Structures are given as C-alpha cells and as structure tokens.
C-alpha cells in the first residue's frame, strides 16, 4: 500500500496571454498557472486538493491526465509520463470533470457505458460486475434509458462517476465532483467514493471547493495557492498551520467589562455574553477552570474553528509570487 503512484517534481506550467493595449499595441504576458509543484501520492490514498479559483487545481489535473504538457519539471503516474503515454495511461485512470460531462448528451445513459466498454476493452465479466455495483450504489437503474440531456445535474454526476469506474482504474481524478449538487446527491456521491476507495483500493485525487468533501473523505489535504502547495498534511495539521482559534462563549451572571484571562482574548462582548478566542491546539479545560475561579458563570460553550476561515487565512498569508512578466 506504500507504493508511490503519482510523482510531481518541480512542475510548472505557464501560458502566454496576449492582451490588447491601445489600438495597435499588444502586450504579451506570461501567466504561471502552476509555479513549482512538488508532491507524491501513494497507491490507495484519497487526497483532497483545494485552493481558490485560478490557483492551478484544474491545470494540475490536466497535466496528470496528459491533456496538458508541463512547461518544466517531472511528472510520473505509475512510472509513466502522462503526455507521452497518454493512451496507455488512459486505460488505467478514470477522470470526472464536474463541470463538463463525458457522457453522450443526446443518447441514453446506457449507450455511454456501452461505448466505454468498447473504448476501454472491458471484459464482459468485469463490465457486468462494475456496472451492477455502480447501478446499485449510485441508484442509476431508473436512469439507464434516459437521454443524458434530460438528467438533473446530480443524476448526471452520478452517471459520470460510474462511467469513469467501469474499467476499474487504479487512479481516479475528480475535478469538483460535488459542484452544484443538492445535499442528498452530495452525500450519495461521497458515500460511493469512500466505498470505492475502501473496497477496490482506488487512489483518488479530488479537487473541490466544498470542504465537507474533504472532511468526510480525505485523510490528507493539499492546499494550493498561486500555483504552489502551501499545505500538505492531515486536516488537524491544517488548523495548526492556519493558526486557527477555538472560541469560548461565556454567559456571565451580570454585565462586566471584558474579562481578563491569560491564554485567551476577548473578541466580542454583548451584554452578559462574551466571546474568547484561544489557540485551537490548546486545551479548553484549564481556561474554563481559571475562568470559573475568577468569575461567576451562568453558562458556557466551546466552538470549533470553521475550516473555511482557516483556509481563507492561509490564502491571505501565502506569499504572492510575481504573476506576470510584461513585455512587448
């Protein structure tokens, strides 16, 4: 299980963007979508890949799938170069682009699966087994004979995920798999992905905006910003690195000026209620004991940090590399 599947070493990708500047002049700008990525993914891992819009998430997925050629650096999937061995690697990977379907728009869902069977040369037994599993777990049975264009977004996404798994890929890339889905569809998709990862040992790399995806699915998260990995590790570590704070909400017996408590600071006061922030890594117990000894309390509660805030703070702190080199 510890075998390395994906290796990314010093990978960059820059695009030349031409803009009109005045009537005749045009400026040429080099935009670094990815500015030096380094990471590895082991077989069987489920990795969340997050970052703001334009951070380079999709570009990374496109390079890993062999659609885009990196400008510099070394990239290997199962020991092969994705661009040079695209067709051979395609056989071993599954890809789901959340915002564009791989299904055939005007044909029944079933036809897209039949086509996948030919394209990936899936043996009959494997095909039947995988299709049955997907149909059961993703509840596709009533959809199989419906033209794809008539499916709802959530149904289509389930259909797309099934299409990407019929050939039993070793690695599954999901680009925003839950974008625009309702709560029920999201849950179904997440449960299914967890199942696939657990049962088949499929390596999963998923990019997302929805941190609940990560919290429920991924033991490891990579945060990318401005084309660089700014965090790579578990969710717990994310709180530490993001210097996130928990909040102690206390209800005092009577209205008081902001309380004094070492290790915590008052961030908000409202009548008898006060909000005290303290580092997420510190224990709440001594603080509560100290507080109770000094003041009369009516009630208190501890709020966990919002992961969104943690990530937002991380983006703010990530240094901004030079994004554009203007020339003529």
């Amino acid at each position, binding site marked *: 299980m510890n075998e390395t599947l994906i290796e990314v070493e010093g990978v960059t990708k820059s*695009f030349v963007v031409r803009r009109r500047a005045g009537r005749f002049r045009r400026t040429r700008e080099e935009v670094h979508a990815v500015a030096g990525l380094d990471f590895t993914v082991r077989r069987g891992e489920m990795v969340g890949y997050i970052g703001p819009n334009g951070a380079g998430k999709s*570009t990374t997925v*496109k390079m890993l*799938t*062999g*659609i*885009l*050629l990196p400008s510099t650096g070394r990239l290997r999937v199962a020991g092969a170069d994705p*661009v040079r061995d*695209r*067709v*051979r690697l*395609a*056989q071993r*990977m599954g*890809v789901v*682009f959340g915002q*564009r*379907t*791989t299904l*055939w728009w*005007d*044909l029944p869902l079933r*036809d897209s699966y*039949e*086509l996948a069977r*030919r*394209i*990936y*040369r899936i043996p009959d037994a494997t095909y039947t087994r995988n299709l049955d599993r997907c149909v059961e777990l993703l509840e596709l049975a009533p959809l199989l004979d419906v033209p794809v264009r008539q499916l709802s977004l959530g149904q289509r996404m389930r259909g797309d995920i099934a299409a990407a798994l019929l050939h039993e890929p070793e690695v599954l890339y999901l680009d925003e798999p839950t974008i625009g889905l309702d709560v029920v569809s999201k849950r179904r998709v997440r449960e299914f992905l967890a199942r696939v990862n657990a049962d088949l040992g499929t390596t999963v790399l998923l990019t997302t905006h929805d941190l609940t995806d990560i919290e429920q699915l991924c033991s490891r998260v990579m945060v990318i910003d401005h084309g660089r990995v700014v965090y790579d590790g578990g969710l717990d570590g994310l709180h530490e690195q993001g210097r996130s704070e928990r909040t102690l909400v206390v209800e005092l017996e009577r209205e008081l000026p902001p309380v004094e408590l070492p290790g915590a600071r008052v961030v908000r006061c409202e009548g008898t209620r006060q909000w005290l922030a303290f580092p997420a890594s510190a224990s709440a117990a001594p603080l509560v004991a100290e507080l109770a000894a000094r003041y009369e309390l009516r009630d208190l509660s501890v709020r966990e940090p919002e992961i969104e805030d943690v990530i937002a703070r991380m983006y703010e702190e990530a240094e901004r590399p030079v994004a554009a080199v203007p020339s003529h």
Partner: protein
Amino acid sequence: MAEALHALRCYGHIVRMWIRAALAYPASFWMTMLGNLGASGMDFVIIIVMFLHTHALGGWSLPQVAFLYGTSGLTLGLADLFVGSLDQLGVRVREGSVDTILVRPVPALAQLAGDRFALRRIGRVAQSGAVLVWSLVQLDLAWTPLKALVFVSLLLSGTLIFGSVFVGGSAFHFFMADAAEVQNSFTYGGATMLQYPPTIYARDIVRGTVFGVPLAFVNWLPALYLLGRNDPLGLPSWFRFASPVAALLCVAAAGLLWRTGVRSYRSTGS
C-alpha cells in the same frame, strides 16, 4: 496495427450509436434526409437550366459535365459522411469538452470523426451517385481495364482528398476560434467548383487546384483521360494518373496538421 484496428472499431461503434439515435425519430430523420437530397439536387438543376440555353459549357457536353458533377458530389459526399462531423470541433474546443476526449484510450480523431455522425448526409451521396450513373449511361465510354481502374481510383482518391481537407481544415480549430468557414470554402466550395469543367475557369485558378490544394486530382485530371479530352493547362499526361499519389500526400499532410493541432492544444489548453 492493433491500435489502429481498435480505433476503427470504436469509430464504427460511435457511428452505429448515432445512427440508432437518429432512427429513434424516423419522421425527423426522413425529412432532413429529403431536405439534404433536395438541397444538393438544386446544383444540378442549375446546370440543366444552363444547358437549356447552350449545347456546351467550356466545350463540355451535358453528360460530360454531369460526370464531373457526379464524381465531385459523390467523393465529397462520402468524405463528408465519414469525417464531416469534425467541423463541430470548434464548438468542443470552445466549451472545453475536448478534454473529455483526450482522457480516453482511443485517438481523438477516431472519436471526433464519429461524433454526431449524420446519416442524412447520405442524401448527397445518393443524389450525386444517380447523376453519375446517368452520365455514364449517356457517355457510353469504351471501357477498358485501365479505364475501370482509373475510375475506381478516382472515387477512392477523391474521397481521400476531400477527407484530408476536412481533417486538415478542422485541425485549425485547435489554433483558431472559428476555422469552420475556411475549411468549408475548400470542401463544399471546392466541390461546387469541380462540378464545372476546368476550361471555364481562369488558368491560374486551375493551376492552384493542381499545385496548391490539389482538388484537380479529385476528378478534373482523371476525367480528362476517361472522357478523352485535352488538358487546358497542357500538363504532362501522367498527371491524369497521379490522383492516388496526390491523395496519399494529402492524407500525410492532414495527419501532420492534425497531430500539430492536438499537440498545440496540449501546450496551451482551452
């Protein structure tokens, strides 16, 4: 070789899928088919109207012009039927759905050529074929084995040349926002040009179709031999038999352009 066979098989499957989809709405299918037949037939009506006023066009009789019309329409029709779907590539590049094609283990060309395969395009093939048969009956060529060979090679090479123009032309979609019209001017525009005898055009235009985009090899040059006519350009007589060579060169050039297109897409993205 096994890969090429697999690509062809996938193309065939995609084509069958679309035919089945089209036949799911039979009324709509037959109406577009008849519309196609009628639209391509109008060209020939224009030619007949011209011959109501004159006995020859650039020195060519009606059956001879019908021969040009039939061979040009049939070869374009076949090329259009097999790979004409490629002109929708521009839309796919703009929406970014080429990505979904590139992650499958089959060459992009095989998948894109079969995409939205339109069986109604068989209308042009049928209509041109009928005109060609009529012209052959009227002309009563003294068939020899060599003439039969040149005739078959005309149809094959012509289809390959037009097909190459479709493939090569659509490769420009990878570089340009809207290349469909450039490509159409060579395919549909070119086929209309080839319906008329070369003698009615300026010499430089005809020269362009020999040495530039080699459309003259589709039917003009082999027709000179089959119909026993003189070459208006006075080219060496072996040019009349060179269509297969021209076709192979076209296929190679189109393949190169296509590869370059895919490669450029990979380094720039959508």
